[in-house]
């Protein structure tokens, strides 16, 4: 038996009783903190971009990643863009990136408007290619772990390096000023720059008071199935250097605002759904059932062809940058990058997050290097915000056109009227006329218009459904695949449960406060006992009370319940919790 003393691979057979090993000598003096010039928290694309840029500029950089491996905590839809207008793309920073980690370039992009089994398909490749240098389907475990290896090599040269299985749990302050980070696994560390690239549920952004988990309307929730498909080329009739993206909207998700996607990977498909969280809550919809509605739609029959092997079920919260992207994503020595700063552009049918995280990470690093060379590294945050504005990143994240349009478009009376007009005979006539002139597809392909789509039912449900009813053709063929049950999906996931140390605490177990989690949580469902949240009837003194209970074991760490329920929400300790293999 090997004496595996790896601190990153602690065995689970620790003694049950707590033995006071403590520090034997007074090593951990308060004044004796470890110091690095920069600490980067999280090694997704944003953290990797920041760390690589810092290292390239000779900044001593420590990267702390809470997963057993970078990417093991990370989920994305799976489409990474390199924008022509972006100052940095991921292959600028990691030249072999595409060859080493990308699944397939996306060369064709379609939008399917669905009403029952009638479908009207638009080719929106032009919109997809607008401002796009390239765009690849990716799986995050493979991608992020590759990035992490490069990042470790680069940062080790500076005297720093990358450590996995370390969870940063908060900010270290001195007299109210942010001076470093605190961790579960390490003593506090001070730094001149702290890059919070710790994702959508950033504990650092919340510690700094820059983000909260209050309003469902500011978030989307995505769920995804990675589906094994060894012969993608044949099924889609594409060559190995081609790939397809398909979007789905209309009535296949009832009235829940959102849509579905399908991306081709090398030998698998990423199929998922993304919905406005407030809409999921209002409709009391079950995310996994909405995913199943897509998976079992006849439209997917020709590709799946009766076979279905799901490699992984996953979920993720997505910030709506239009509402939450911080214009000043910094506080003292802390800068926020990527999802942590709300930098996730979901506008119209195209969703862009990772590319903005990369740009932001590199810009934050540059801002620090510039500020330091001018002798005042405390100006890094302001310089970073300015670079985001100057490089046009902020304009993409918070487009002025959307803000102007949404003032009118999202007010209920106006929204309802728009919805009724589209669905009316007059509206349908206009649609048919537009279609004859080929104008409809062109409208959908307009990057300008896609920036101002309001967050109402009209663009997500009503319009696509009406288009499909008026212009669509019935889908031929069948789709008789059976997606796994939620219990099986959870059963297939890998967990290292932190027994006796749950990372989420339910503060209010009343149905009013926390009942929404029972349906909105992607690993919970009504009348399902094997999930995180369930409703229980508790008998007390002859009375019956309905209460919500929580078991964090199946948690996929998406953060949904932090918003829709009353919880104290933290990430699990380093290396603990769910481990995604695909991501």
């Amino acid at each position: 038996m090997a004496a595996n003393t790896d601190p990153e691979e602690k065995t689970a057979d620790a003694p049950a009783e707590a033995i006071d090993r403590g520090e034997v000598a007074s090593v951990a003096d308060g004044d004796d903190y470890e110091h690095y010039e920069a600490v980067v928290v999280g090694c997704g694309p944003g953290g990797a971009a920041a760390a690589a840029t810092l290292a390239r500029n000779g900044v001593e950089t420590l990267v702390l990643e809470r997963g057993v491996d970078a990417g093991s905590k990370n989920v994305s839809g799976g489409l990474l863009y390199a924008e022509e207008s972006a100052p940095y793309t991921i292959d600028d920073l990691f030249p072999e990136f595409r060859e080493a980690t990308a699944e397939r370039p996306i060369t064709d992009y379609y939008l399917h408007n669905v009403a029952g089994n009638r479908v009207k398909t638009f080719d929106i490749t032009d919109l997809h290619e607008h401002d796009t240098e390239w765009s690849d389907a990716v799986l995050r475990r493979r991608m992020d772990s590759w990035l992490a290896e490069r990042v470790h090599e680069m940062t080790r040269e500076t005297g720093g390096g990358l450590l996995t299985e370390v969870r940063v749990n908060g900010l270290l302050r001195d007299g109210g000023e942010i001076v470093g980070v605190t961790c579960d696994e390490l003593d506090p560390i001070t730094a001149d720059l702290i890059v919070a690239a710790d994702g959508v549920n950033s504990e650092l952004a919340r510690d700094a008071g820059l983000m909260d988990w209050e309003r469902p309307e500011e978030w989307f929730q995505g769920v995804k199935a990675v589906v094994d498909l060894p012969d993608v080329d044949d099924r889609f009739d594409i060559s190995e250097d081609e790939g397809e993206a398909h979007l789905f909207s209309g009535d296949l998700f009832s009235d829940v605002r959102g849509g579905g996607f399908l991306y081709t990977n090398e030998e698998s498909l990423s199929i998922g759904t993304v919905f406005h969280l407030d809409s999921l809550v209002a409709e009391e919809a079950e995310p996994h059932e909405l995913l199943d509605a897509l998976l079992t739609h006849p439209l997917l029959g020709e590709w799946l062809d009766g076979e279905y092997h799901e490699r992984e079920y996953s979920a993720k919260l997505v910030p709506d940058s239009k509402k939450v992207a911080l214009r000043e994503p910094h506080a003292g020595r802390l800068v926020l990058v990527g999802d942590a700063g709300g930098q996730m552009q979901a506008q119209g049918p195209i969703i862009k997050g990772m590319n903005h995280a990369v740009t932001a990470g590199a810009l934050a690093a540059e801002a620090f290097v510039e500020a330091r060379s001018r002798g005042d590294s405390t100006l890094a945050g302001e310089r970073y915000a300015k670079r985001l504005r100057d490089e046009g990143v902020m304009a993409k994240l918070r487009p002025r056109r959307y803000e102007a349009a949404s003032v009118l478009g999202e007010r209920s009376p106006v929204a309802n009227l728009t919805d009724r007009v589209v669905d009316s005979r007059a509206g349908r006539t206009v649609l048919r006329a537009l279609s004859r002139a080929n104008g409809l597809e062109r409208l959908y392909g307009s990057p300008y218009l896609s920036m101002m789509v309001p967050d109402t039912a009209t663009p997500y449900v009503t319009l696509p459904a009406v288009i499909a009813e008026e212009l669509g053709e019935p889908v031929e063929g069948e789709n008789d695949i059976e997606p796994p049950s939620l219990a099986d999906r959870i059963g297939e996931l890998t967990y290292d449960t932190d027994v006796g140390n749950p990372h989420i605490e339910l503060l209010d177990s009343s149905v009013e406060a926390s009942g929404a989690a029972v349906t909105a949580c992607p690993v919970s469902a009504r009348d399902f006992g094997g999930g995180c949240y369930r409703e229980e009837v508790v008998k007390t003194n002859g009375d019956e009370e309905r209460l919500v209970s929580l078991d964090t074991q199946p948690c996929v760490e998406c953060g949904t319940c932090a918003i829709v329920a009353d919880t104290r929400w933290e990430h699990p300790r380093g290396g603990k919790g769910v481990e995604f293999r695909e991501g």
Partner: protein
Amino acid sequence: MYTVTLTKGVPDFSEGAVSFDEDGHLERGKTPTVMNPNDRFALEAALQTKVRHGGTAAVMSMGPPGYGEVLQEAMSSVYADELFLLSDREMAAADTWATSITLATGIERIAETREQPDLVFAGFKTADGETGHTGPQTCWCLDWPILTHVIALDIDETERTIRVKRLVEGDIEEIETVEAPLPAMIVTDPEFEPTYRKAEHRLTFKDLREETTERAESYEEHLTTWDHAELNLDPDYIGLDGSPTIVSGVDPIPKAPSEREATVVDPGDEAGMESVLDELLPYTNRAAAGGD
């Protein structure tokens, strides 16, 4: 810091690996040799010392030439730099006394040919002999201070002292802290756990792991074998001739009869599984498990 960790190859007593004859005697030829399980904690202490203070980690064993693989395993565990095997027909069949003399001489030889070791680490006891004599006797030969049942340790390089926490009598309420000058011998308790609370230490750890993975593949290049002549040891004081212990006989411990009844339930048998649940139900406490 120069540390030497003592290790021994023992029969693999784990289920499936170990083989006994009809009389309950160990079949040595059919049972594979592995590193003594308790040595793992000594190796962890040596590794912690190397990670925190740098220097050289050496591993030493006395045994037949076939022990090389045990040392290789130890090398990749402790990310050791050097391996020493004290191996000679004259050393064979030694009891703990003769073994201790041999090991102590080996450690002195390291001091003469390499540098003075600062610390010697040993495990609590071996899985085959179970005496717990060899470590303390080796230390007696060296005339160093010995610290046993160590669960945590810290070294002050400038003062040249070591401070440890000891688990006294296996009672977690009784943990004493003691200090000794270097060089010293440390016997680790199975409750020893290394701690790496500094990023720098964990980064060093990662570096060492990469270096050692390569080194362990060609461990022979880092292995030094000494026989009794090279250690200048009198054959009368080592091996069987130097062993005062007399084993008069070995009695196998009779197997205790099983008093528990076992019912085998197939997981596919729903009614059977229900009855298992009914049996288990009184032992569960749903309320206490809530939120966990």
